[in-house]
């Protein structure tokens, strides 16, 4: 039986970052990944000769190299990644578009957003500026009780529309709660999206993952793909002490520490053979919010026909912006429209992509996918895609007849390839900020959680989570 200092369950971004961090100091570590490819929620696949990315509209937290304390620079230092290896292409600009309302543009220069607010919401600008200086002084990483961001912003700005508009991109890019998020999480995301901003690396997600994997392997880390963990084994004398894991194949591997990145309810399921977590407890922890995403490939010329001078458009065309599990399969009243080619100084290509994200209802998609004989699921995908294209065309112009290739994925696809219960990209609404998992006897002594359900998500957030949990709980303790 093989044995490691640390086993990491999941080769997504948090697992890879945690692995690099630990392997860097010569420690012996194994990543176990169920899928045949690393990356998890942020990966890629091939169709008809096109490489399609599943995550990565944009990386958040853009900062120049000399700001040493910026999260991106700290993360790269911790992983020994140089900025040159990745390459930085800043966004053009993005906008928050609410139909029949003033539009708010923002870019990597925070002054643009301030100017837009002072132009369109003159009565709120002073309040906005003092709100920003208030949140600038807060250390959002100190764990505390959940505070409603919506209530805080509304109280500070005294303007419901502005509150909705400012929340819209942040909810879409990282909230596991309906219509709201924790105030600390809001502050972290406000900084990473509005005050810092978006960029893209030189290459694709595939290149980025390759870089991480190479770093990990060069430091001596081991990884096994197509290797799912079936359960986490605890000691028979001490139920809060983990001995190792058992794979789907039945093989057992022991470890001093186990770090799980697959999610909170997903992890409880793997622990279930030794402690009795009630099924309804696990079910209640599953995230409710999920999405569909479609990728449209267009010839480069089409760029001139539609409004495409921006990087990302967050839109809402209904009277009330809703961020919640929709009653229908897809909610096309709001969404995210992303142009992954619209970043500064990227090499010219002969195609360009358009990616559209909408909130979706897992149960309806799951129901449609159960009967494999019928075409219901495929037809549903088609018809929702058409409705989405029609709505998006009203915002950016008509592009439908130019589509060279398109593909879309649903909550069921996400669940299938990442194991995220109900396809909930942002995981459980219950986050474990201290990285500890508890059973009826207390916290597990040598099992920790990182990534999405530790509370930090997105590409940079999940990687920082992997690094900081290893730093806090595992490095130096073996």
């Amino acid at each position: 039986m093989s044995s490691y200092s640390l086993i990491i369950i999941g080769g997504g971004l948090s697992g890879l970052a945690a692995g690099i961090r630990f392997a860097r100091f010569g420690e012996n570590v194994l990543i176990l990944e169920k899928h045949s490819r690393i990356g998890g929620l942020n990966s890629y696949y091939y169709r008809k000769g096109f490489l399609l990315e599943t995550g990565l509209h944009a990386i958040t937290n853009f900062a120049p190299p000399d700001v040493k304390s910026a999260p991106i620079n700290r993360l790269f230092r911790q992983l020994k990644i140089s900025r040159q290896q990745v390459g930085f292409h800043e966004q053009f600009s993005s906008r928050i578009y609410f139909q029949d309302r003033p539009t708010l543009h923002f870019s990597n220069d925070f002054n643009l957003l301030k100017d837009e607010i002072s132009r369109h919401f003159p009565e709120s600008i002073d309040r906005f500026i003092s709100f920003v200086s208030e949140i600038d002084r807060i250390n959002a990483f100190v764990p505390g009780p959940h505070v409603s961001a919506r209530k805080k912003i509304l109280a500070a700005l005294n303007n419901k529309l502005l509150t909705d508009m400012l929340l819209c991109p942040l909810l879409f890019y990282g909230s596991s709660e309906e219509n709201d998020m924790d105030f600390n999480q809001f502050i972290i995301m406000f900084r990473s999206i509005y005050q810092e901003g978006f960029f893209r690396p030189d290459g694709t997600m595939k290149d980025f993952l390759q870089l991480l994997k190479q770093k990990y392997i060069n430091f001596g880390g081991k990884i096994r793909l197509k290797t799912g963990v079936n359960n986490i084994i605890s000691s028979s004398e001490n139920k809060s002490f983990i001995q190792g894991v058992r794979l789907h194949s039945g093989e057992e591997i022991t470890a001093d520490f186990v770090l799980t990145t697959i999610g909170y309810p997903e992890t409880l399921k793997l622990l279930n053979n030794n402690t009795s977590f009630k099924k309804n407890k696990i079910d209640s922890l599953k995230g409710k919010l999920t999405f569909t995403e479609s990728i449209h490939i267009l010839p480069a010329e089409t760029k001139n026909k539609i409004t495409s001078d921006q990087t990302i458009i967050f839109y809402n065309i209904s009277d009330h912006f809703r961020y919640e599990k929709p009653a229908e399969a897809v909610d096309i009243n709001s969404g995210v429209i992303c142009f992954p080619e619209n970043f500064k100084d990227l090499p010219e290509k002969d195609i360009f992509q358009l990616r559209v994200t909408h909130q979706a209802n897992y149960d309806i998609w799951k129901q449609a996918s159960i009967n494999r004989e019928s075409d219901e699921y495929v037809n549903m995908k088609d018809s929702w895609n058409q409705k989405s294209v029609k709505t998006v065309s009203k915002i950016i112009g008509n592009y439908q007849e130019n589509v060279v290739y398109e593909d879309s994925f649903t909550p069921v696809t996400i669940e299938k390839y990442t194991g995220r219960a109900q396809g909930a990209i942002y995981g459980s609404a219950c986050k474990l900020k201290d990285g500890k998992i508890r059973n009826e006897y207390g916290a597990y002594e040598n099992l920790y959680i990182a990534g999405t359900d530790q509370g930090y998500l997105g590409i940079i957030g999940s990687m920082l989570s992997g690094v900081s949990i290893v730093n806090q709980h595992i490095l130096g303790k073996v």
Partner: protein
Amino acid sequence: MTLEEIKNVIIEIIQDIDEDADLSSLNPKEALRDQLDLDSMDFLDIVMELRKRYKIQIPEADYPELASLDSCVNYLGPRLQSS
């Protein structure tokens, strides 16, 4: 290892953590953190790097001993004498 060698090891480790750091004018008596743009995450790297290179265990309670270049040398001196 001589005290001078230990000092050089620390400087080399810091340079490795932050390639752009200017270490030529470090005041050995002053706290490293006040002179460099580094945070507690970076300081953990010094501890881990020493452990990796010289197999010495530095308990968390002793981290304050590594505050300045001089205090590093004083703390590490007896512990690295044999290597």
